């Protein structure tokens, strides 16, 4: 007997639906992604030009560009993105390298060992669930370390609240008053890699077990330098 599927009435409400979240990948200095609204797909980019700390929260300000299938490119300047939360990374962390500026004390020079670590994925060929054993690291008591913690820790996603967006100006038939931007940090270029390390350090300095305003300010200064190009 086939499974009966429950049917409910269609919603006839005319109020524009809310766009809750959009999601972009950091490429260079810009978050790029796409989202669906009104059965259409829109491409977007958010290019922060400056960052600051407001009430101990990171705020990026910059240009939001929307590519609409009908209206072409539309832009809004001075869009604020306030960091509200983060998600720590697990899988492959970035290759740690000296920043081009040469001033960041928190970024580490890549070693061949660290580089090797980036290139090894989980080993699952033998049996489902088996995992790589080929990066043994020990803590000061000689115990194995936990992946993506300690010196291997990094932030994988930054969640921002965007300042209210002007939906008609952007040509989007949705309520954009409170949109959340998920900024995924999975760098494929040196600028994004540097920014991931700096954002990671900044998040650790602001929300870690031992908040460190001085370290946060140092990271912020370098991020601003990179955003200015």
């Amino acid at each position, binding site marked *: 007997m086939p*499974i009966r599927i429950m049917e409910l009435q269609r919603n006839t409400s005319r109020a524009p639906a809310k766009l809750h979240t959009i999601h972009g990948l950091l490429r260079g200095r810009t978050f790029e992604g796409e989202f669906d609204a009104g059965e259409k797909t829109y491409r977007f980019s958010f290019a922060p030009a400056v960052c600051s700390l407001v009430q101990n929260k990171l705020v990026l300000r910059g240009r939001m560009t929307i590519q609409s299938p009908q209206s072409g490119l539309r832009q809004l300047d001075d869009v604020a993105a306030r960091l509200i939360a983060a998600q720590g990374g697990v899988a492959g962390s970035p290759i740690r390298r000296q920043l081009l500026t040469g001033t960041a004390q928190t970024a580490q020079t890549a070693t061949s060992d660290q580089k090797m670590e980036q290139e090894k994925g989980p080993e699952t*060929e033998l049996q489902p669930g088996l995992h790589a054993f*080929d990066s043994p690291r020990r803590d000061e008591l000689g*115990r*194995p370390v936990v*992946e993506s913690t300690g010196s291997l820790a990094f932030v994988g996603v930054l969640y921002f609240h965007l300042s209210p967006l002007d939906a008609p100006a952007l040509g989007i038939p949705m309520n954009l008053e409170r949109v959340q931007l998920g900024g995924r940090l999975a760098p494929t270029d040196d600028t994004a890699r540097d920014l991931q390390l700096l954002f990671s350090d900044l998040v650790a300095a602001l929300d870690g077990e031992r908040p460190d305003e001085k370290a946060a300010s140092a990271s912020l200064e370098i991020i601003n330098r990179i955003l200015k190009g």
Partner: protein
Amino acid sequence: MRSAKRYDALIIGSGASGGMAAKELTARGFQVLVLEAGPPVNPARDFSTHTWPYQMMYRGFGPPGWKLQEQWMQDTASFYSRHFYVKDSEHPYTTDPGKPFMWVRARIVGGKTLHWGRLSWRLSDLDFKAASHDGFGDDWPISYEELAPYYDQVEEFIGVSGNADGLPHVPDGKYMPAMPMNCGENLLRKGAEKTGRLAIAMRVAMLTGQPKPFMKGRRKCHYCGHCGDGCDVNAMFNSVASTLPVAAATGRLTLRPNSIVRHIITDTNTGKATGVAFVDRVTREEQEAYARVIVVAASTLESTRILLNSKSRHHPQGLGNSSGVLGHYLVDHFGGIGASGFFPILAGRDPINEDGKATGIFIPRFRNLDAKTRHPKFLRGYGFECGSGTSMFPGMARRLISGFGPEFKKQVRRYYTAPVGMTVRAAMLSRFENYAEIDPDGVVDAWGVPVLKMHIQYSDNELEMAKDAADTSEEILRAAGAEVVSTGGQLTAPGRIIHELGTARMGNDPKTSVLNKFNQMHDVSNVFVTDGAAFVASANHNPTLTILALTIRACEYLTGEYKRGNL
């Protein structure tokens, strides 16, 4: 918008527990509505069991970077099975700096049963009464004796292959024939025995014998080795092939996919549950459905998320959270520690057709079983999942063999049956300070539903256990005559083993637990939580068999209470 109909029972989730609850309750005469957050599954379209790499774009690896963009936390998703898993970009959650959690989720009819590891172990009183054994934490409010009849029912229904090994801490059940060990696994078994440990066949929920009459549409396993891509002959247990069709055959099941539950609705006068509010995943329409009893089986953390989001005047901290325990005692197992290598004695042997056996052998827990095996540095214990041989893409080539061309291929063939690996599956202590909460900063998912923030990290107990496991695995591998290539490793981040458990635990005391011994909420009598959230402790064994047994037991109790008018 609301459904006019009031169902007898509404089940949230269609995975292992939700599917079993649907089967049990429809069989007992209940009109049941199952709400599943994900899309329906069409095996003919969605399973790629026998798809060869050359039939896939990018040889089955997917376009470069696809996983980093959409499914970076879905560890076991491949390009073949990606549609069984959520897109992380739509389903965020948050963590503290330096304390990662990997949350692997399947929002689809059938849930994680479509690609689960199938290992089916019973827990014993060493697990249920662990606190009495070693003094840490709390005992479960049930004993093995109470759950054993339900384990029997589950094994009979889903079909489990394995042997009766006679180990009191890994109780035997009702099994179909075990999958035979290959040469490497037999060598490893002998090596383990030399060190005083045992190695047994894995017990897996796969049909190795003739399907029983009620297993309609299911066939014997033909050892193709692609269980995680959807089993097209339904040899492996999953909800879509097993429990949901049986429930549907009663004529009393209504299933609604694409239904993301926001919260449980409660009566403003009595505080009892009356239904759920949900949003359609595709149309984003807000809807409601009503029932006399709610069974929450959305998976450990999704269930807890729904309960925490169900705040009301009667339940200001979330539904069932008068104790303040909801969300706490989050555990996973850990892996990532072990050893791997190869058997020189098998190198150069003719390759044989044994690479489709999607299981291996298991070295059961051997620490802290009694005073004689007590370890001075940690409580509880661990086992090893082990295997030998190679599958379609010989991973050993990357580490054992260099070069390219004909000589490389020759070497791959030479070592094809020789690799061996062991990886730990270890208990994590249930601690109040490991918990999930609704993100305090207001992060939401793509449907505007508040998400979870995870706070979890290992204690010294797990780290000491990992150290012991690293040393022991190397010892066993060497005793077996293997050449050891790598040892140690890193502990998997919490979540990666996909055995997240706890957060709405059972107990006899409503002040320290969310559910009673029948998975019924202390605070709200017509709400039952039947998935892994109910676990008091993790043990070191895969949890699904226990989840299924608890679900049957809960449904039996629920039926009695319903008939007595107590719900």
